[in-house]
């Protein structure tokens, strides 16, 4: 064992530097294309939209820079605030039904084992359908006459067919239920995965400790499922908050604005009234709210043990 005296040559240190630089370059080159596409498709239009929101733009006619006029008009419009409120009702109303239902399904699916996977596949079918197709389909199912599917169900129970989509009281709940029908299986799939990650030993331990089923659920299932639940809630929140196609197809924001959420207001203002400047202002507001929701989602997840967000 002897230390041979070999000088560290200048050449070799240069080679090392070039390798280190290359590694960094390779990393950037790998992220580059994805970054480029994301920036081009998502980020640039968002900024362009912000720029357009500062202009008076009607029916593709640009009438110049108006500063924050579009925003001021938007926020001084009581119907805009009403739309934000409706968005919250729709979002949290859907969540309140979808999440417990998904949890229940997830637990059933796990108990069913192999058949559970089959059931899950079946439940996922509505989620796989295009929102616009879902809207069409439900419009057809809900035709309020004895010739409609749901109408005939009502008739079978001795109740006249109900105007589920045009009654000011029923329209929003109907939309919520269709939203749940469409999306809850996605929540169920994530929760099923989450349940699978809870060690079975814990349930054995709980049984030994004499915990009842309710207590086991409350003290073991819920806390350990928290990360999955949070994801489900966040993803559904964002998805419901941005829901627009089924609203366009089913109620058109009515009756009497009862289902005009912020996203529908954006559609109505930008694509029906063609007030595109103000439409972009609404888009910017929606983007902000989405950002907020996602930040919240990451924040909460980041605090979870095991959630390395």
């Amino acid at each position: 064992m002897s230390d041979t005296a070999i000088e560290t040559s200048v050449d070799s240190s240069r080679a090392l530097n070039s390798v280190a630089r290359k590694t960094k370059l390779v990393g950037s080159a790998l992220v580059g294309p994805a970054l480029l596409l994301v920036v081009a498709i998502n980020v640039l239009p968002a900024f362009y939209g912000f720029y357009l929101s500062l202009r008076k733009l009607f029916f593709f006619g640009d009438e110049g820079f108006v500063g924050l006029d579009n925003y001021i008009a938007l926020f001084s419009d009581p119907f805009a605030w009403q739309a934000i409120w409706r968005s919250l009702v729709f979002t949290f109303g859907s969540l309140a039904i979808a999440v417990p239902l998904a949890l229940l399904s997830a637990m059933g699916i796990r108990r069913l084992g192999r058949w559970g996977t089959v059931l899950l596949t079946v439940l996922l079918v509505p989620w796989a359908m295009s929102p616009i197709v879902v809207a069409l389909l439900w419009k057809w199912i809900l035709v309020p006459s004895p010739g409609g599917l749901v109408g005939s169900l009502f008739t079978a129970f001795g109740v006249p067919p109900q105007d589920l989509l045009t009654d000011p009281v029923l329209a929003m709940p109907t939309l919520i239920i269709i939203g749940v029908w469409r999306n809850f299986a996605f929540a169920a799939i994530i929760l099923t995965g989450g349940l699978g990650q809870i060690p079975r030993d814990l349930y054995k331990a709980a049984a030994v400790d004499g915990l009842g089923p309710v207590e086991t659920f409350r003290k073991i299932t819920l806390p350990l499922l928290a990360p999955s639940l949070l994801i489900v809630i966040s993803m559904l929140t964002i998805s419901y908050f941005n829901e627009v196609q089924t609203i366009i197809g089913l109620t058109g924001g009515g009756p009497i604005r009862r289902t005009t959420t912020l996203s529908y207001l954006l559609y109505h203002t930008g694509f029906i009234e063609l007030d595109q400047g103000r439409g972009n202002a609404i888009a910017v507001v929606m983007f902000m709210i989405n950002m907020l929701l996602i930040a919240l989602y990451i924040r909460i997840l980041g605090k979870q043990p095991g959630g390395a967000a």
Partner: protein
Amino acid sequence: MKLLSRTALVLGCLLAALVALGPIFWALSTSLKPTNRIFAVPPQLIPPDPSLEHYARLVLEGVHWTFLNSGGYAFAAVAVALILGTVAGYALARYPLPGKPLLLVIFVGAMAVPAFAVLLPTQLMFVDLGLYNTYVALPLLYAGHVLPFAVWVTRSHFTTIPRELEQAAQIDGYSRFEAVWRVVLPGAKPALLAAATFGFLHSWNDYVTATTMVDTPDLRTLPVALIFFQGFHGRDWGALMAGVVIATIPPVVMFLLFRKYLIGGFADGSVKG
């Protein structure tokens, strides 16, 4: 007690399956009825004299071409998003990168941009770039929409895979690319399939982007073509429901094929995020 709860479970599941599939079944039933039977009172669950006239009409009016368009766009978008997303997700998980936190913010922030909210600016941009109303417009947009999710899912997956695996493969005589390809990617199958499913559904099901970015019938997608049956003459429920049935087949086939991986893929990809 146990038997009772088991029965309740099975009944509950059957009910759930009925609620999930009932509407599709009704669509199928409607699509097989002659036009003047569609509104019959009381409704006929199973058409007594099924006919394929509505399906024939879809073909006659060229809707099957839009089916291929939709499939092609979705396939291209998923391919682009998966390739770029996996590569970027890998780099984010493994390479030292300048400004990495900012990169992550951009990828996550991109998920917060609702596609339909930026349609107008996107359209104007695409017109300027000469991409409007071309074969690449929709695949490019869909890939862009799905990419942040793909990056996120793959990145989270790669961070959970021990570095030693690919190091071992590199020492075993494989290049870095080969090591990732032969050792890391096989394990990422569920995550990649989850991202692929997500991307396919997004592209296949989109309506608003497709109707805004493309004018020429040759370039049209299936959902847009279907809306033509809700047109000047009112809703042509027979054709619409035939379209609904056809539009639902590919995603369902996909689910059946990937059933095994979906639960794991979605659960892992998102929870570990």
